[in-house]
């Protein structure tokens, strides 16, 4: 389901609103004034060359340590995002799909996911799911992601292939049903079949009350998950915004012309 941008913009306050965000990593300014508004129901793609700050933006919003916020604000449903701990942001409905999901040996995949689901449910004042209820929820989703059930009892990402790790990220997202999903290069390292499965998973979550931000280097993902907006990050700023035709233009012309414009 795609929303007509103009109408959505008029209808609702943004789910996520980032204003003039400046962020340093190791003393160097990586984001140099980023502003972005994402409304419920929208899919945004953030593109850009390597080192443009795409992943930094996703990580800072999720609360990863190691970044220095120099200036700017980020509001999620009107709340100051930077005043919340990472786990509070997650429980409020912000999900980060990792580019390189980390292995946690010995921790059962299902166990972690159940803990995550119940942490969010507690936050919302809902009763926790027991093992059976949880399994019922997960079973439906693993089918969609074409994942074998034995997957659940393996250690988190332990010995997973690159593609399995990405599917697992999307599985977690489907089970957690976040309000805002930031997907950091979820398409990288996927073959075309896996890409389709992952894209189907993402599309199944598109809904009027939810927004998705895809961070990606390549446009090919956007053939399957069609964005409402495309933004190009260059040198720590959003150099250009447009609809999906911008992505196609980037595919044709590369990033250099935008980087040059940004430098100018």
């Amino acid at each position, binding site marked *: 389901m795609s929303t007509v941008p103009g109408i959505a913009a008029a209808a609702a306050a943004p789910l996520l609103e980032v204003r003039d965000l400046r962020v340093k990593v190791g003393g160097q300014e990586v984001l140099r004034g980023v502003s972005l508004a994402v409304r419920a129901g929208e899919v945004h793609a953030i593109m850009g060359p390597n080192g443009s700050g795409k992943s930094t933006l996703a990580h800072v919003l*999720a*609360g*990863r*340590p*190691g970044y220095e916020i120099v200036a700017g604000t980020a509001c999620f449903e009107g709340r100051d995002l930077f005043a919340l*701990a*990472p*786990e509070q942001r*997650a*429980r409020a409905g912000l*999900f*980060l799909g*990792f580019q390189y*999901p*980390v292995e*946690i*040996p*010995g*921790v*059962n995949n299902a*166990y*972690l*996911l159940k*803990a*995550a689901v119940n*942490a*969010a449910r507690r*936050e919302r004042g809902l009763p926790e799911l027991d093992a059976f209820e949880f399994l019922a929820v997960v079973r439906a989703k693993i089918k969609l992601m074409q994942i074998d059930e034995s997957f659940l009892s393996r*250690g*988190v990402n332990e010995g997973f292939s690159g593609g399995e790790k990405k599917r697992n990220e999307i599985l*977690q997202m489907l089970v*957690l049903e976040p309000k805002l999903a930031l997907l950091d290069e979820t398409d990288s390292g996927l073959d075309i079949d896996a890409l389709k499965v992952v894209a189907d998973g993402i599309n199944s979550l598109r809904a009027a009350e939810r927004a998705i931000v895809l961070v990606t280097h390549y446009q090919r993902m956007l053939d399957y998950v069609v964005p409402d907006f495309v933004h190009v990050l260059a040198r720590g700023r959003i150099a250009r915004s447009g609809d999906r035709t911008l992505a196609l233009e980037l595919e044709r012309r590369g990033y250099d012309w935008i980087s040059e414009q940004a430098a100018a």
Partner: protein
Amino acid sequence: MSTPDIDALVNRSYRHGFVTDIESDTVAPGLDENVVRLISRKKQEPQFLLDWRLRALRHWQGMREPHWAHLRYHPIDYAAISYYSAPRQAKDGPKSLADVDPKLLATYEKLGVPLHERARLAGVAVDAVFDSVSVATTFKERLSAAGVIFCPFSEAVQKHPALLERYLGTVVPYTDNFYATLNSAVFTDGSFVYVPPGVRCPMELSTYFRINAANTGQFERTLIIADAGAYVSYLEGCTAPMRDENQLHAAVVELIALDDAQIKYSTVQNWYPGDEQGRGGIYNFVTKRGECRGRNARISWTQVETGSAITWKYPSCILRGENSVGEFYSVATTNNYQQADTGTKMIHIGANTRSTIVSKGISAGHGQNAYRGLVKILPSASGARNFTQCDSLLMGKHSGAHTFPYIEVRNPTAMVEHEASTSRISEEQLFYCLQRGIGAEDAVNMIVSGFCRTVFKELPMEFAVEAQNLLAVSLEGAVG
């Protein structure tokens, strides 16, 4: 009545019966022949046992405290210890839960220890709410119907002296080491188990059901014998913290498995570890050893060590019988200023003997954790195999992990494998969990439990859950 209630009450009723025996005396500090004779007299021991104690004493007097372990502590003044004292009486302890250190109570709450059990553990005198005598009796009846002997060591001295004379000190001789020798001279009580040929012990034997579990004292002695074809699983330890002074605990455990017998010995050790500054805490110098004396015998040690200021402990297996199997699964945690030097010895004597060692060391705060293990394959042990896996997890900047593997192979057909790793809880792992909405403390517990999984799965179910909770409590504050 729920199970924990039963546990508490059974334990209590046992204790009650025992205290009358040894109520009064505390001998003056120091150790000489008179003290040993007094202990033996108090226990109304047969001559052979007194003689054995005295030989141990004489031997000990010529020994020196060992200092090869990776441990630092204030010298122990053996002349300042009283070697025989009655358990603490209720009147000396706190009068009610209100008098107990709230920190301790908070810990119990986290462990999920039921309220009146908490009181008992903290040393508060609690009135019996239910009639527990029948419960205790039921256990005793079930065991004796199967022919299993399970009783306090001092009772075994009276009722089964022949078994004692035959097996005592045959795995850990009184000359074995400084602490074991000291124990041999002055031990006051402990557990005795005998499982007759072909009998599978009908229940897990636990110190919960043992007389005086909370107050057995500094020098316990445990002897477990599984006769041919017998099976027994023994759970040792109080899984909630004991408030104790800086104190020496020198226990000895001997296991003997005859032909086709199996002994599974699980420990969750949670003595008082000392405070955040490293004051107080138990010095735990324990000798645990099992012998697979018969063919196809099997001895498994599983230990979760979270307590004590100092842990010096090497549960070992002597694999004498052909095809016998020794196993050692260990989780040792050190936080604050705790130190652990622990591991195992696998001595392969018989042909085709096999051993497995899985050691997981976790160091947090200023904790120091050493794995020390010996795998020894004697010339007679053709076809012997050992697999050792030794992993360390470090938390924080000031903790330390050390590995001292000793391997001696004197038979060319033997196969010995050793794997070791050291890792940290990475910021990435932690952030991954946080990003899924899991709080920092839960995340750390989850990651640490994952690290320990191969050991926890060796524990009986209820014990595994408690061990996991315990680990969480002992690592509290380890990640800022």
